[in-house]
C-alpha cells in the first residue's frame, strides 16, 4: 500500500505581504470553507538521527496545542493513509515508548534507534473545512503562520486531503494553484529541518562499497579505508551530541574496521600510515569504550528490571541513576575529545595518507589477491589462538580470540565483493556464530567489571542498591560460567568447519 513516488503537492507558501488571518478570511468564502477555532501549536518533529522514519515515508510530530493538549501525530508522506493521532502527555524516546497504534506502525522502521528532535516550529493555525450536505468533512485546509528556528516567519497553506475524497482535494489543489500570491513549497518537516541546518533524509553515511576484483590492490585498500573514514565522520555529529547509542556503536565499528585493515595489510601500507597513526586509532578506540560499555550496561539493567523481584526496584533505580551519571561524564569527555585538535589532526592526516597510498606505484597485486591474502592471514592468526582455548583459559586469552574473530569478520565484510561469494558467505556465517559465543562470555566479564568499579567508587550507595548490584554480578557470573563451559566446543567446531572449507580463489 506504499504509494507512488511523486505525491501530490499539498503545501503552498504565501508571499511576504499576506498575513495568515487575511488569507484564511479570503480563502474561506472563495473556496466554500467553514472556519474553525484558531490554534497555537508547538510542533517538534521526531526521527532517528539517520532519518529512518522520513526515508521510510513517515513523519512523526509531537504537537502541543495550548488549548487541546498534547498529542503525537503519525503522517504518511507518500500515501493517502489517514493521520494517526494519539493524545498523550509523554514524548517517546524509543519505539518501546510509543503509545496506541504508533508502536505497531513505527517499531519495525525504528528498530533500536532512539527518537530525537530533528526540527521544531511554532505555528498559529487557522483551520478551514469543506463540509458536504451530510455534515461530513471532505477536505481540510490549514492556513498557518509558522516560525521555525531562526528562519523568520512564513505563511503556509496546508491542504489536508481526507481519505476517500481525492476528487475534492484535486479541485481544491487547482483552486489554490490559481491564487496569485501562493507558490508551491516544501513539506513542513523539510522546511523546519532546513531552518535547523539539516537536510531531512540525509544520514550522510556513504553508500556500500563495491570493489573491482581485477583492480589494483592499493586502490581497493585506499577505497576501503576512505569508506571507513567517511562512515566515521557521518556518525560523528550523533556521537558528539550523545543522542543515539547506535551511532556510537557504528562509529566504533568504523574505528575497529580501520584498525583491523591496518594491522592485516601493514606490508602494503607506507610506514607512516601503518605506524604513525596506529597509536592515534588506538586512542580513538579507547576514548569511546567507556561510553559504549555503559550504554550496554544500561540495556542490561533495563532487561534485569523484568527478571528481578519488585522489591529490588529501588536499588536498581539507584544503580541505574549512578550508571547514567557515569555515562553523562563519559559523554562530556568523549564530546570534548571529538571537538579537540588530536581528533581533527587524525582525520586530516589519515585522509592525506590514504590519498598518498592511492598514488603509490602498483606492485602488480589485484584486489582479489589482496582480499584472499588478508582473509588467509586473519584466519591463520585466529586459528592459532583459537586452538589454545580451554575451559580454564583466562579472560584475556578469550578476549584475544574474540578480537581476532572480529578482525576476520570485518575483513570478510569489507572485501566481500572481491572474494569468492560462496566461501565468503560460509566464513561470515561461521565467524558470526563464533563471535556471538565469545560475546556471551566477554560481555558478562565487562558488565561484571563495570559494576565492581561502581561499587568500589561509590561507598555511599544504599544497602539495597549494593544488594542489587551483587545480585546482578551473580547473574553475570552465572552466565559467564555457562558460556565458558561451552566455549571450547564452539571454538573447536569453528576450527574444524574452517579447515573443511578451504578458501579458494574464484
Amino acid at each position, binding site marked *: 500500500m506504499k504509494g507512488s513516488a511523486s505525491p501530490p503537492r499539498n503545501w503552498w507558501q504565501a508571499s511576504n505581504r499576506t498575513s495568515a488571518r487575511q488569507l484564511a478570511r479570503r480563502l474561506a468564502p472563495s473556496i466554500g470553507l467553514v472556519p474553525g477555532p484558531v490554534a497555537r501549536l508547538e510542533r517538534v518533529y521526531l526521527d532517528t538521527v539517520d532519518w529512518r522514519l522520513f526515508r521510510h515515508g513517515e513523519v512523526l510530530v509531537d504537537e502541543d496545542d495550548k488549548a487541546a493538549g498534547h498529542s503525537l501525530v503519525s503522517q504518511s508522506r507518500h500515501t493517502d493513509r489517514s*493521520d*494517526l*493521532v494519539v493524545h498523550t502527555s509523554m514524548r517517546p524516546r524509543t519505539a518501546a515508548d510509543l503509545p496506541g*497504534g504508533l508502536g505497531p506502525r513505527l517499531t519495525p522502521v525504528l528498530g533500536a534507534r532512539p527518537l530525537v528532535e530533528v526540527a521544531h516550529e511554532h505555528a498559529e493555525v487557522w483551520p478551514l473545512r469543506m463540509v458536504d450536505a451530510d*455534515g461530513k468533512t471532505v477536505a481540510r485546509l490549514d492556513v498557518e503562520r509558522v516560525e521555525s528556528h531562526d528562519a523568520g516567519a512564513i505563511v503556509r497553506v496546508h491542504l489536508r486531503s481526507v481519505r476517500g475524497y481525492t476528487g475534492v482535494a484535486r479541485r481544491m489543489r487547482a483552486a489554490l494553484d490559481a491564487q496569485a500570491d501562493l507558490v508551491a513549497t516544501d513539506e513542513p518537516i523539510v522546511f523546519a529541518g532546513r531552518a535547523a541546518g539539516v537536510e531531512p533524509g540525509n544520514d550522510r553515511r556513504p553508500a556500500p562499497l563495491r570493489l573491482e576484483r581485477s583492480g589494483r590492490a592499493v586502490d581497493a585498500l585506499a577505497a576501503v579505508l576512505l569508506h571507513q573514514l567517511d562512515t566515521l565522520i557521518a556518525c560523528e555529529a550523533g556521537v558528539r551530541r550523545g543522542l543515539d547509542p547506535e551511532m556510537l556503536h557504528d562509529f566504533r565499528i568504523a574505528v575497529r574496521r580501520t584498525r583491523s585493515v591496518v594491522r592485516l595489510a601493514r606490508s602494503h601500507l607506507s610506514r607512516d600510515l601503518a605506524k604513525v597513526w596506529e597509536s592515534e586509532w588506538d586512542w580513538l578506540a579507547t576514548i569511546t569504550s567507556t561510553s559504549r560499555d555503559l550504554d550496554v550496561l544500561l540495556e542490561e539493567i533495563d532487561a534485569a528490571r523484568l527478571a528481578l523481584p519488585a522489591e529490588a526496584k529501588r536499588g536498581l533505580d539507584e544503580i541505574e541513576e549512578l550508571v547514567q551519571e557515569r555515562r553523562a561524564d563519559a559523554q562530556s569527555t568523549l564530546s570534548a575529545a571529538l571537538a579537540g585538535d588530536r581528533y581533527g589532526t587524525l582525520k586530516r592526516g589519515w585522509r592525506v595518507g590514504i590519498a598518498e597510498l592511492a598514488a603509490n606505484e602498483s606492485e602488480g597485486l589485484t584486489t582479489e589477491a589482496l582480499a584472499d591474502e588478508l582473509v588467509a592471514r586473519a584466519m591463520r592468526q585466529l586459528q592459532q589462538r583459537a586452538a589454545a582455548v580451554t575451559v580454564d583459559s583466562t579472560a584475556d586469552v578469550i578476549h584475544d580470540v574474540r578480537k581476532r574473530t572480529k578482525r576476520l569478520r570485518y575483513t570478510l565484510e569489507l572485501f566481500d565483493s572481491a572474494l569468492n561469494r560462496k566461501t565468503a558467505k560460509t566464513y561470515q556465517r561461521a565467524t558470526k556464530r563464533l563471535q556471538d559465543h565469545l560475546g556471551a562470555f566477554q560481555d558478562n566479564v565487562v558488565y561484571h567489571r563495570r559494576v565492581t568499579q561502581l561499587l568500589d567508587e561509590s561507598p555511599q550507595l544504599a544497602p539495597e542498591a549494593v544488594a542489587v548490584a551483587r545480585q546482578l554480578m551473580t547473574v553475570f557470573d552465572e552466565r559467564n560460567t555457562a558460556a565458558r563451559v561451552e566455549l571450547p566446543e564452539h571454538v573447536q567446531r569453528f576450527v574444524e568447519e574452517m579447515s573443511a572449507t578451504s578458501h579458494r580463489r574464484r
Partner: protein
Amino acid sequence: MKILSTYSIKGGVGKTSAAVNLAYLAARDGEPTLLWDLDPQGSATYLLRVRPKVKGGAKGIIRKRRPLDAAIRATNFENLDLVPADLSYRHLDLALDKTKRPTRRLESLLRPLADEYSYIVLDCAPSMSLVSESVFGASDALLVPMIPTTLSTRTLEQLTEFLDGRPGAHPKVLTFFSLADRRKRLHREVMATLKPKNATLLAAAVPSSTEVEQMGRHRAPVAVFAPKSRAAVGYEALWRAVRDAVP
C-alpha cells in the same frame, strides 16, 4: 490487527450501535481503526455521515476487481476510517458464492490492511448465510449483543451450536447484554440467571437508553454528544472488556 465483528442472527439488538461506538472508542484510544459496514441498510454508514456508495459494488470488492483500500473513507473522527455500505451488499452471498474459498474471502480481503489498522470492526447484517460464514472465518472475536429475554438466549444457543458444528477453529464468542432495562423484571431475571452460566458473557452491559436512539439524530457515537450518559459509560466498559478479552 484484530478483527471484531458485531453479529447476531436477530435484528434490532444493537449490533450497529455497538459497532460504531466500539470502533470510535478504539480510535479515540489512539488505535487506527476501520469499520466495515456490511449491512446493506447502511445504518453505520449513515451514523458516520458517509454516503452509502462503493464503486464497483459488492461484486467489485469480493472478486478483487477493485481493491478494498480504494473504498475506504476517513470519518469525521480521528483514527477512524470506514468502508461504507452499498445497496449491492444484499447480493454479497451471490458474489461470495462465485469465489473459490468463500468462507476465507473476507479474511483475504482484509489481510493487506494489517499494517495499517490495529482494529477492524465488521458490522454484519442479521442473518445466517455465506456472508456470516466468511465473517466467522475472518474474525478474531464475534461480539454478540443480547437483549435479556428468553428468545435472545435461544438465539445465542443456535449460534454456539452452529459454530461448534463448523470444522476448524472458530472465533472467540463474546456476548453482552444490550438494550438492558433494569426496570423490567424479565430483564433482571434473565441477566441474573445467565451471568453465572455463560462463560462468554462479558460483565459490561449496554443499557436501554434514549442516547443510543439519539445517535441517529446526532449522527455520531454516544461518547461524542453525551459523554457522561449511562449508555456512554456502558460502551466504555464494554470496550475495555473487549480489549482485554482480545489482547
